[in-house]
């Protein structure tokens, strides 16, 4: 489904990705770990099409199409979903209105009719309860006044409503209590299917106890330096990144 070949990308004139290679097939769950500053978030943003990041070399093909040739909205409509690490607030635009507009845009792209209001409300109410958020959150502005954990659960709710083909979770587990982590994991696991792929970018091993990955990759200095199965995550947790010979760059 996704083939990344020799990807180089930079942001604010600093080169972050330095020849990254990754293949993800439908039905697979991949975890990407790495120290601060290694390029984990950059990878997510580049896949989503954030134009603050420039790709200087390399190719990405998604479902046999050139991903780099597609705009952000196109990629979304083709089924790519990014759960943001730091979801932004949009006051004045309700979660309901936002979701409805997003869903209908994607449905239109797929040649489907718009979802009617009653059907949409029903689905929205069911999904919001699935992520343990009160239905009253639907009327509030997007992420407006939400705590960190609530924002992350809202991302998962949107993911469940939009049913993407490739879901990229950018540190969705960071800042979550155990209870919220379970809710997120349940949501992601509910999405697992043979025609869907999931990439989890994570900084903490704990998530992988709940969403068991097929593959674990270590991203350091802009490249994937080691790949393995789920045991790799446990070794990392135990031994730290120094074991692979990489330093943990402190952020800010």
């Amino acid at each position, binding site marked *: 489904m996704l083939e990344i070949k020799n990807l180089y990308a930079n942001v604010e004139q600093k080169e972050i990705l330095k020849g990254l290679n990754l293949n993800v097939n439908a039905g697979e769950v991949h975890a990407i770990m790495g120290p*601060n500053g290694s390029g984990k978030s950059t990878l997510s943003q580049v896949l989503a099409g954030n134009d603050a990041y420039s790709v200087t070399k390399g190719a990405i093909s998604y479902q046999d199409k050139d991903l780099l040739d597609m705009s952000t909205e196109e990629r979304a409509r083709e089924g790519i979903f990014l759960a943001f*690490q*730091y979801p932004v607030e949009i006051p004045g635009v309700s979660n309901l209105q936002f979701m409805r507009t997003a869903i209908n845009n994607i449905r239109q792209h797929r040649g489907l009719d718009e979802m009617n209001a009653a059907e949409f409300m029903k689905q929205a109410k069911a999904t919001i309860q699935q992520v343990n958020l009160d239905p009253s959150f639907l009327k509030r502005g997007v992420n407006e006044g939400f*705590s*960190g954990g609530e924002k992350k659960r809202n991302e998962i709710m949107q993911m469940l409503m939009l049913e993407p083909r490739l879901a990229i979770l950018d*540190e969705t587990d*960071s*800042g979550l*209590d*155990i209870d919220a982590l379970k809710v997120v994991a349940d949501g992601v696991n509910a999405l697992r299917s043979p025609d869907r792929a999931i990439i989890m970018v994570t*900084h*903490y091993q*704990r998530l992988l106890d709940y969403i068991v990955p097929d593959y674990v990759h270590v991203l350091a200095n802009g490249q994937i330096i080691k790949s393995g199965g789920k045991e790799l995550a446990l070794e990392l947790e135990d031994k730290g990144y120094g074991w692979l010979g990489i330093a943990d760059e402190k*952020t*800010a």
Partner: protein
Amino acid sequence: MTVLSNIDFAIQASKDLGAELQDFSQTKLEKLKSIRIPTRKTESWKYSAKRLKLTETYPQSSSTNTVNEIDNGYELDCHVIIFNNTQLSLNELGETGMTIKPFSDLNEAQSLQVVSGAIAQSNSYEFAIANSAYLQNGIYINVAKNTHINKPVKLVFLQTGEGVNFPRVFFNIESGSSITIIEEIHIQANNSPSTLVNSVCDINIEANAKAQYLRMNFDDGKSKHVGATGVNLHRDARFESYHLALGSELARHDLLVKMLGSGAECQLNGVCITQDKQHYANHTVVEHIAPNCTSDETYRCIADNEA
């Protein structure tokens, strides 16, 4: 009598502490010599200074027997640590993953953690500097990685009768773990003007860990207590505080939160009630140092009569 070091609190820095902590308290004692006793011209003491009424000397705190239980009208099963005047009592307590040690038992690395606390590092808080200058035996609590501490840890700062009590606490919450901390101040001063509780609590919350902090005071409404709480928040760490502040003769709390790592979050809540001629001063400072951190503050203050 203009500088704080001139006040004789009748306590000295302990010689039982390790070298790092002794150096630390020495430095703060030197600093204390340049700290002016707050007057109404001291900006952050503008409305509080006249209530300070520090006496030149304070009597020795009476050493009472170890107190094992404190009744404060609510039922909650906690790990309890009591700072009784100048005595310290740790009951049989502990949970797997939690280590509790007096300052005198700390190794070098742990001592340096204490020194790097937010309040410890700051030179803005007059009474916190005094607490550091006369550092005696504090309590160090460490929570191991990915551990959830089930029972709250309750710290009781107890002062009966005259004298001062300078309690000192340091929490190190390791990555992925969580804990609830309760601080209670109990003062039975029996109308003594020479009573003062001056507490410092520093909390270091590592990546993706969480601490809930509750602070309350129970006294006769005519006492004097000041306190400072400092919090270092690392990447994705969370801090929630709940402060029930009941007015007294002089009551002040300084809360300093430093958001050092991205994704950190803090929620500071408080209810402050003052009546008659009481006083309470709440000062909060939140430093947004790393990007993508969020902070929320909600304090509701109710003032009646001439409070």
